[in-house]
């Protein structure tokens, strides 16, 4: 073998190694398609995305923070906090006689605005007072958790029906007779055939995720995020306002967690203090499996989604096979550690610009 083909071969292997997560995802899909009866279906496929939304959004929230070299432990309980205050607001507006849609929109808007607060506080603690992110966000976890539970002492309030319809509805329906319809489920006879495509919340999540991916990759905001994680001193000396950017990053994370909380309460009618608490491990795992480093400076949105999908498919696949999801924790733990080890084997991609 001559040296050029050898080099090409190495490059191919390196490229494959760098996309090990994608390969793993494909292997996983093939495995469950063969092993789990009923896995290979449109319904299950949509379930994966529907229940995956929480980890997609929290994963991306965590991604921005992790690229700057930080960590956000509070996202899970901010989800719960937002799920509770949004239902509170909406109920309050409905009581004042407002009609459903404006009440809903205003409630969501206010929740998203208040949802920025935990991020603002932890961001300020981290950027101005040099509190380690772990500690700052854990104290915000405690505070949002405590406030949520206090708000819910006298029971949770229900979201109006419209919200639940949206939360569990689909973007596109098709049925023989009524034909195609957007958002609104057509009336069909009991047991009649209806095709439901793309859950609404998946549409919402991916619009947001698309925008964030664009921001991270193509805008100065994204560039600063990578710069801070790569070399804070360099960022400061280059005139980047590092503390302001850091605050923004934690506010973004907090914002995404609040959005997740609103989606949660649209899915499940009632808010719950620990609504997103069990998703922390999965969200961080998704980011790391997607190739980001906890030391900062690395990671992309789509790879994080890839990592989240690996976990979502694992969970759904095991469930379809009827295996208790206890195994999921073990497997995610192993993939998480392996991800770091595998990424160490494959260094940064390099290019050669041939110049004449």
């Amino acid at each position, binding site marked *: 073998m001559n040296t050029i083909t050898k080099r090409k071969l190495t490059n191919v292997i390196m490229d494959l190694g760098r996309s090990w997560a994608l390969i793993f995802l494909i292997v996983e899909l093939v495995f469950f398609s063969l092993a789990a009866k009923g896995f290979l279906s449109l319904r299950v496929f949509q379930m994966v995305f529907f229940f995956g939304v929480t980890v997609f959004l929290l994963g991306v929230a965590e991604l921005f923070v992790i690229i700057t070299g930080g960590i956000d432990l509070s996202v899970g309980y901010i989800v719960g906090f937002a799920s509770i205050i949004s239902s509170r607001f909406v109920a309050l507006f409905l009581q004042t006689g407002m009609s459903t849609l404006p009440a809903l929109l205003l409630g969501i808007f206010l929740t998203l605005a208040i949802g920025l607060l935990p991020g603002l506080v932890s961001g300020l603690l981290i950027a101005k007072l040099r509190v380690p992110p772990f500690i700052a966000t854990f104290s915000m976890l405690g505070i949002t958790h405590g406030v949520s539970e206090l708000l819910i002492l006298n029971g949770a309030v229900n979201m109006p029906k419209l919200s639940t319809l949206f939360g569990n509805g689909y973007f596109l329906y098709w049925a023989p007779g009524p034909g195609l319809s957007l958002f609104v489920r057509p009336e069909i006879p009991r047991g009649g055939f209806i095709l439901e495509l793309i859950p609404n919340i998946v549409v919402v999540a991916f619009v947001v995720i698309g925008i964030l991916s*664009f921001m991270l990759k*193509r*805008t*100065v905001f994204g*560039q600063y995020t*990578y*710069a801070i*994680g*790569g*070399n804070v*001193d*360099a*960022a400061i*000396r*280059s*005139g*980047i306002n590092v503390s302001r950017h850091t605050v923004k990053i934690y506010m973004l994370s907090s914002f995404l967690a609040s959005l997740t909380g609103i989606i949660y309460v649209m899915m499940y009618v009632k808010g719950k203090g620990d609504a997103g608490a069990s998703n922390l491990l999965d969200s961080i795992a998704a980011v790391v499996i997607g190739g980001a480093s906890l030391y*900062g*400076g*690395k990671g992309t949105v789509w790879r994080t989604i890839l990592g989240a999908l690996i976990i979502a498919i694992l969970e759904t696949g095991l469930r379809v096979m009827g295996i208790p999801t206890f195994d999921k924790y073990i497997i995610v733990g192993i993939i998480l550690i392996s991800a770091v080890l595998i990424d160490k084997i494959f*260094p*940064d991609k*390099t*290019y*050669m*610009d041939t110049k004449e």
Partner: protein
Amino acid sequence: MEYLVETKNITKRFGGLTAVNKVSFGVQAGEIVAVLGDNGAGKSTLIKMISGVHQPDGGQIFVQGKEVEIHSPMDALSMGIETIYQDLALAENMNVYSNIFLGREKTKKVLGLFNVMDSQYMFDESQGVLDKLNIQIPSLRNNVRTLSGGQRQAVAISRSIYWNAKFLIMDEPTAALGVAQQKLVLDLVKSLKDHGLGIIIISHQMHDVFAVADRIIVMRRGEKVGDLKKEGTNPDEVVNLIVGSESVV
């Protein structure tokens, strides 16, 4: 000829310790001045006052004949004074052209709505400055992490040149480099003279100093104890000055 940057009786104290004591010196355009001295002699402190990291406790700084106060590294940058730091100030996780434009990204509008980065522009401009300085790097799309130490220095220097540095400060730019890499950096430094820059270089390597410098300043215990034209001196004399057996001002 007028000095590009000049200090008069500049002094810096840290508590009871006088790190720099009434030092006066100047650097002209197109001149390379080396600062030598033993560990703790005050070299870094001296240049940090010019690059805005420390504020002097006494004395004056002049840039192109005008007295100035430099309160921060940003102030220094706005006066065309760029510092190449020992630890480089590059983000290793980012590619070469992103580093050259770090903090001053070129953007363009898409759909008349969003500001996105104009990567092609940044790439082309960066390639231009590297070509001008005759620096070879496999590709500007490569992350800085994948470059050699000398290439990284070269990127840091190109960055300063691209942003119109008039005055370059380098604290031990060859300290961590192998022989071939040292040569690469020193050749680059020499070529900068022809672009009319004034340069201060701190180094412990006598060989480097005699290879590039026009003038040599020796510091001992915070004071300037020697200011010599390269042609009029030799390494032995300089070493004696550093360790303190004679004094020529």
